[in-house]
């Protein structure tokens, strides 16, 4: 009985606290702009997956972001330094929401660098919109983040290209570089990511005058693909687009090669895991390509400088998450510089007005949905290792 009462007291207390916090919060959002530019430092929030299931993504992005901010702070922005306030969202959407609320209301950051995965970033979109503080995600690729059902989230931005864009790039690569006239699509019908890429590929490939000769589907966790592969084989395509995730992709490639399908296969960044090599084997990965955000082997001077700096700091090769985290730091710093007074509203405008910003992962421009238009990198698997093949501009 007593315990129940105590719990009740706590509950009402926390409710009151919540209301108070809410009040304080609304006050800061109206006057927040004025207070933030009087300090010595400009506070940026970083709400990333530092622990939990997708910690490797969040940690990489955090490393890249820190490297960028350290470099920017050598000169500072108009004499002020940037300070990152980190929040660990534990790879959990609810934690991501409360983390963002804390950053905005308690730490009074001028902008939040959002999470590495789409789910956790989606959980922060409403907080950013309500409090009018820009949210900039380095690597969340789901289209809904910036534009849900035709409605633009005007405070939300991203540094990476969105999912369907990879399909378009793959189609251009298939018809221009491989010279394929016919293609088969093999899609994971349980994944929106896969279907989004496939739809974009189909549209772009037919627009180029190509013909889709087979459209087949599987579902996540399938293990036997031989029958469908035999069907694809008899449709005689010159190219197979396989926009799945690494587990099934590995099995599909292996079974395809066993069944004597020696065609070029291509997919998106869903392949980007060492598991795909482990499952399929280096031999089966011959003549396969993926689209990705960047390659550490790209000869571009900007990329090589970044790779060298990152290696010096962390003693490892930066992956795409680290590169995009790094780019996010520069994108944000650029916007803060152009905003003049570093108020959330001006930063939002500056983020939106970005034009031809040179970043590691390409030259950044935004379309009307706040989605970046920039080059994608094509990687080829050679002896089971990703090697830089070419860069495709949109």
């Amino acid at each position, binding site marked *: 009985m007593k315990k129940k009462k105590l719990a009740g007291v706590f509950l009402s207390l926390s409710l009151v606290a919540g209301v108070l916090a809410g009040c304080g919060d609304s006050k800061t959002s109206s006057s927040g702009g004025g207070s933030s530019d009087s300090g010595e430092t400009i506070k940026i929030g970083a709400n990333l997956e530092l622990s939990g299931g997708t910690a490797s993504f969040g940690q990489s992005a955090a490393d890249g972001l820190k490297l960028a901010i350290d470099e920017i702070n050598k000169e500072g922005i108009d004499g002020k330094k940037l300070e990152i306030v980190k929040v660990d969202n534990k790879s959990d959407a609810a934690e991501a929401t409360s983390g963002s609320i804390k950053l905005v209301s308690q730490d009074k950051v001028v902008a939040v660098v959002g999470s590495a995965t789409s789910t956790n970033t989606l959980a922060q979109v409403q907080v950013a919109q309500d409090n009018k503080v820009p949210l900039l995600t380095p690597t969340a690729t789901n289209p809904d983040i910036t534009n849900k059902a035709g409605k633009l989230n005007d405070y939300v931005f991203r540094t990476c290209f969105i999912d369907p864009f990879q399909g378009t790039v793959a189609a251009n690569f298939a018809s221009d570089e491989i010279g394929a006239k016919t293609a088969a699509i093999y899609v994971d019908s349980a994944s929106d990511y896969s279907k989004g890429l496939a739809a974009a590929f189909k549209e772009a490939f037919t627009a180029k005058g190509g013909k889709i000769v087979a459209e087949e589907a599987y579902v996540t966790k399938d293990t036997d693909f031989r*029958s469908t592969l035999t069907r694809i084989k*008899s449709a005689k395509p010159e190219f197979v687009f396989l926009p799945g995730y690494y587990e099934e992709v*590995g099995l599909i490639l292996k079974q395809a090669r066993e069944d004597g399908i020696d065609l070029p296969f291509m997919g998106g960044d869903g392949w980007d895991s060492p*598991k795909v090599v482990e499952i399929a084997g280096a031999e089966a990965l011959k003549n396969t390509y993926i689209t990705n955000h960047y390659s550490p082997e790209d000869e571009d001077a900007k990329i090589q400088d970044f790779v060298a700096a990152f290696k010096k700091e962390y003693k490892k090769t930066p992956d795409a998450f680290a590169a995009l985290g790094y780019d996010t730091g520069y994108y944000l710093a650029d916007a803060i510089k152009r905003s003049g007074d570093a108020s959330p509203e001006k930063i939002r405008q500056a983020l939106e007005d970005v034009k031809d910003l040179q970043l590691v992962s390409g030259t950044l421009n935004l379309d009307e949905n706040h989605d970046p238009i920039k080059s994608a990198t094509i990687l080829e698997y050679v002896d089971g290792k990703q090697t830089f093949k070419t860069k495709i501009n949109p």
Partner: protein
Amino acid sequence: MELIQQLVNGVSLGSIYALIALGYTMVYGIVKLINFAHGDVFMVGSFVGFYAITVMDLSFIPALLLSMVTCAIFGVLIERIAYKPLRNATRIAALITAIGVSLLIENGLIYVRGAQPEAYPNNVLPMDKLDIFGVSISSQSILILSVSIILMIILQFVVHKTKIGKAMRAVSFDSEAAKLMGINVNNTISATFAIGSALAGAAGVIFGIYYIKIEPLMGVLPGLKAFVAAVLGGIGIIPGAMVGGLLLGIIEALVSAAGYSLWRDGVAFIVLIFILIFLPQGLFGKNRREKV
């Protein structure tokens, strides 16, 4: 040509179903229990084979044998711990226990080693492609098919030519009468579990080599499919399980071949429903009247 290729695909898949279905059918034949943990014994066999190959550096045949022995012991343990105390309980109690055991094995393994998938090494068996009139068959699938057939022949021999096989058939026919004739029913049931589980273990290793990826929940769907295969052939009848397994594999391959690959799992269970409605005794079953 495409049709023949699809039949080859179907037979390879079907022989794995058949090996698992044999365990189902033998156990059902003797204790009238659908052992839903059987699919998980298959999974455990697959992992034993994986660790035998990667950690202990064994080659295919020793790994297969080790996995079969481990699974046989595991199957007997399951029977002794979970099912034997319920031998005289209602059949529904035993069935629910079987589902419980299945969940325990799956989640127990996830607890011990995590849920991440594992990949069988690629070099366990030689990989050559044979092209016969435009039909490409990998040497792996031929070897896998022959191992399955050899195991089934050995099983037939055990059931029909040995003393324990005779005891099994007797217990399955009438366990009370068998007991009166001096047959040790408990040992016979354990032997059945051991043999069925060993076959599931073998199927696990073969599955791992053929499909590479293994994970703690991999046994669920093949287990259910094998159950369908067992019912299709007539549950409790050993040749029925073999034919049912191969037939189900071929049906699935043909469904995919017709372009309905997303319907493949659905069709397997539609087969189950139709069999239960129109031919409940299965293809090989005799329509025996209920004993009163």
